[in-house]
């Protein structure tokens, strides 16, 4: 294997990719939209409801009324002390509510402690160790206490986002390889290329490198943007930067390149068997299935997603990659390709 020959092929391929708007759009838009849109669409709402860590300095006067064990509907409650009650469609202001359930309630300047909140709007209040919060907007209302559970939920959620950063390197090569190999076929440029003193291994390695480098560049760049954005959004509320966790590091550094390699070798095999760019892309896209499978396993309780489980999966994937690379080289038979490709 002469690396300079392989690099010549890779450099030519990358120059062609740079002038192909479809490849460029896929290469830039898909990863960057995931890196930017996902944090803004999914993390930002969480961040807005996350505990600030610091309760608001609310100094409530002694209550004018005390309510206990009642069901209140369509009431305006000001300067009250409410406990063990169910309140629907009401307005609560400057009050203290304990161990109650609020449904469709607007709360302002109050202290809610151990309260279940549904479909309500909470403004300028302290929410202390809440029960379930659903369908509600907490505006300038820190959740105080119960942070560890919240943080765990956030980290679990962030781990599931990893799926996208494993799908990206599996999905991009499907498109690029189809242009690289089937494009060569359609362009009828393979015949003069194969007539040069270049081995099959050098050609394949060069083409694979040309797909691998931009794919991983886009994946890692989008990963870094995602991490920075998530940290920017969550650090003020969590009090620490949640990413990258060891799971993220192992997945991005090890698993993503392995999925990219798997996708490239699979697509080499596919595109040497089909003669249509779309057919190649559709078949090649199936390579994302193992990535989805990996992230389905924790949902069914088969494994816990963590650095160790990912390392184990990466080891298996490495073995599959070696076999696939061997197969790709064996199946890339120049004579058969020239004779059978129309």
């Amino acid at each position, binding site marked *: 294997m002469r690396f*300079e*020959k392989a690099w*010549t*092929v890779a450099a*030519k391929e990358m*120059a*062609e990719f740079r*002038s*192909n708007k479809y490849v460029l759009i896929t290469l830039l838009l898909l990863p960057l939209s995931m890196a930017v849109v996902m944090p803004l669409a999914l993390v930002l709402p969480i961040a807005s409801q996350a505990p600030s860590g610091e309760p608001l300095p609310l100094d409530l006067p002694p209550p004018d009324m005390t309510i206990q064990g009642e069901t209140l509907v369509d009431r305006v409650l000001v300067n009250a002390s409410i406990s063990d009650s169910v309140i629907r469609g009401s307005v609560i202001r400057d009050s203290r509510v304990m161990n109650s359930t609020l449904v469709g309630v607007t709360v302002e300047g109050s202290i809610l402690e151990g309260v279940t909140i549904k479909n309500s709007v909470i403004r300028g209040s302290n929410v202390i160790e809440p029960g379930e919060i659903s369908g509600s907007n907490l505006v300038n209302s820190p959740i105080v206490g119960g942070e560890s559970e919240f943080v765990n939920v956030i980290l679990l959620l962030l781990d599931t986002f990893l799926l996208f950063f494993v799908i990206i390197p599996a999905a991009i090569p499907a498109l690029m390889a189809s242009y690289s190999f089937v494009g060569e076929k359609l*362009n*009828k*440029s*393979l*015949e*003069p*290329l*194969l*007539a*040069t*003193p*270049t*081995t099959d291994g050098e050609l394949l390695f060069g083409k694979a490198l040309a797909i691998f480098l931009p794919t991983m560049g886009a994946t890692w760049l989008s990963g870094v943007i995602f991490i920075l954005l998530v940290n920017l959004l969550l650090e003020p509320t969590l009090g620490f930067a949640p990413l990258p966790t060891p799971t993220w590091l192992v997945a991005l550094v090890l698993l993503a390149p392995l999925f990219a390699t798997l996708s490239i070798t699979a697509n080499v095999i596919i595109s040497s068997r089909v003669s249509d760019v779309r057919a190649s892309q559709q078949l090649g896209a199936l390579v994302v299935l193992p990535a989805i499978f990996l992230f389905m396993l924790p949902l069914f309780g088969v494994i816990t997603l963590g650095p160790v489980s990912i390392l184990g999966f990466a080891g298996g994937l490495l073995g599959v990659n070696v076999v696939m690379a061997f197969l790709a080289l064996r199946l890339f038979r*120049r*004579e058969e390709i*020239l*004779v059978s490709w129309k």
Partner: protein
Amino acid sequence: MEFIETVDLKRTFGDIVAVEDLNLRIREGEVFAFLGPNGAGKTTTVRMLTTLIHPTSGKAYIGGNEVGREPDSMNIRAMTGFLPEAPGLYERLSAARNLDFYGRLYGVPESRRKARIEELLKWIGLWKRRDSPVATFSKGMRQKIAIVRAMVHDPQILFLDEPTAGLDPSAAKTVRDFLVDLGSMGKTIFLNTHNLSEAERVSTRIGVVSTQLLAQGTPKELAARYLKPASVFRLREATEDVVQAVDALDFVEEVHVEDGELHVSLEDPQKGNPAIAKAVIAAGGEIEFIVEKEMGLEEVYLRLLEDAA
């Protein structure tokens, strides 16, 4: 010295025999036209000789290297330039980038490569457009770039597969002139073509193929070998009496009227023409002029294919 040699070369695709019993000997510096109809096995032969596909049986040697044997095949690729039927250029890349890519693959050192690309692009008149994407070029321009791509490493031998196929007459002429230039440079050229005038004009020797090699030689050699000499008598009127009178002569092998002219095949026109002229006049014919019939490649080619069929 034989530069290209094939010995009983054969290639089949399943039950189909593409090339059979091919025995060629091409000397260094020759421009050899491999002439045959579509499906005659020309492209298959070139693909075998450029090591793209293996022969089913037989052997072939290029510059002493055996086709299909490593590392000989790699040596053959390094010493040959190949123009396939379709130019197969990278359309998004510029002319210079296309040539640079192949220069690198053929291992031309950078200093030499740059000068060579400039030299070649200037030669084909495209130096000013060196940075334009190939997609913006005309068919003829692309074909010229594809030809110089095959020459970027200054190969000892060039395989050109139908270099003017699909080109308009003007572009085809440009490419043909270009091939004449190449021939005058002393390159060994193996030219696949089904264009008779191209073969006649560009090549020093011709091989006619239709799965098997039917004949090889210079156009004159082929004509002498496969066609009988003939004289053409232009008459005021070619009557039946005149035809019968000429046909009655012992040494006349064949006589027929074509476009009002009497075409007479005979062994020795110089000796026989006076007797034929006398016979024509005696039969009431009036001779306007007599010429030797030109034996073109077309007649040879059609005759060979007819015999092969």
